[in-house]
């Protein structure tokens, strides 16, 4: 199975390594050549330097053969556009897009895009942790 990861930051690089460890054939795209170091010395997958909006770059990363794609550059709108291009133009069956803004993540999720919003996850985890620590009844009045 082939996967493409667009954006090789903290999230993208870890996802790429995770997929490779799970047996996927992974190609990574990042604008910055130095991002390759995040994948570690044992990286044996593909790495293409370029912008994910550039179809030549996408095609060099073999998006046409991809079974899955994860889009996690540092720009929400960039991710949303690339994600839709990968779905509509290259018909990749599983495209997952990281979107930090909960409102935009929700808007595009309702239109059928698979979005993951770390901000939502963080908010829920923070609230849960507080309520678990203080108790479900909330703060006790002095």
């Amino acid at each position, binding site marked *: 199975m082939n996967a493409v990861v667009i954006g090789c930051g903290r999230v993208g690089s870890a996802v790429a390594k995770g997929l490779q460890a799970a047996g996927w054939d992974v190609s990574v795209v990042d604008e910055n050549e130095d991002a390759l170091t995040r994948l570690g010395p044992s990286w044996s997958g593909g790495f293409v330097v370029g912008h994910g*909006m550039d*179809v030549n770059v996408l095609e060099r990363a073999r998006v046409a053969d991809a079974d899955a794609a994860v889009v996690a550059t540092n720009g*929400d709108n960039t991710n949303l*556009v690339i994600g839709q*291009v990968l779905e509509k133009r290259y018909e990749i069956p599983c495209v997952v897009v990281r979107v930090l*803004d909960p*409102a*935009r993540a929700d808007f595009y999720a309702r239109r059928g895009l698979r979005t993951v919003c770390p901000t939502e996850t963080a908010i829920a985890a923070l609230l849960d942790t507080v309520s678990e620590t203080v108790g479900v009844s909330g703060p006790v009045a002095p």
Partner: protein
Amino acid sequence: MYVVVAGGGKVGTNSTRTLLEMGHEVTLIEQRPDRFALLEEEFGPVVMRGDATEIYVLERAGIARPPDLLLAVTGDDEDNLVISQIGKESYGVPKAIARVNDPRNQQHFDLLGISLTVSATTSILGLVEHEMPEHGLVRLLRLQREGLDIVDIQIEGHSPAAGTRVGGLSLPAGSRLISVFRHGRTELTEPSTVLRPGDQVLAVVSEDAAPALRKALLGAPKS
């Protein structure tokens, strides 16, 4: 009418100024504090500070009214695409015009259904084509949805089509000649129309067939 303009660069600022002069109601959204301050001096409460790709910012700008027209003219193509999609699909804005900064991104706008686009580079290249007649085939109008171009072709003395009846030309599939302009008059082409040097021919052609049409009428391009 009511217009929301996203992006207070040169395009957004000049569009806002002109729309206001025409008597329209406008809200201009600009994110950068330095630009916002300058714009506020000129436009006062017409300008709003914020990221126009944030839904709450668009809502404060009245996207839910909705505006009659949305201009997505920031310097970022991704932003312009997302702003147009949110406006059209979530708030039913009837018309969104998006600026394409990098012409290579035009295909993404087409793919994602943002059909009204403007690109300075493409416009300038269109003028270059128009001013360089040896190019042969000048695109007058692109019908985005149909994938067709209306083109203008000047028949030259050495063109293989000169002296030939339209019915006798072997034109590529996906092309039709519409009319011939000669001696100040336009005639719709018939199979019996004979093309002559100096004729200006209007044709409708699918994007793929344009090079073959040029070749059929004008021969191989000069290098």
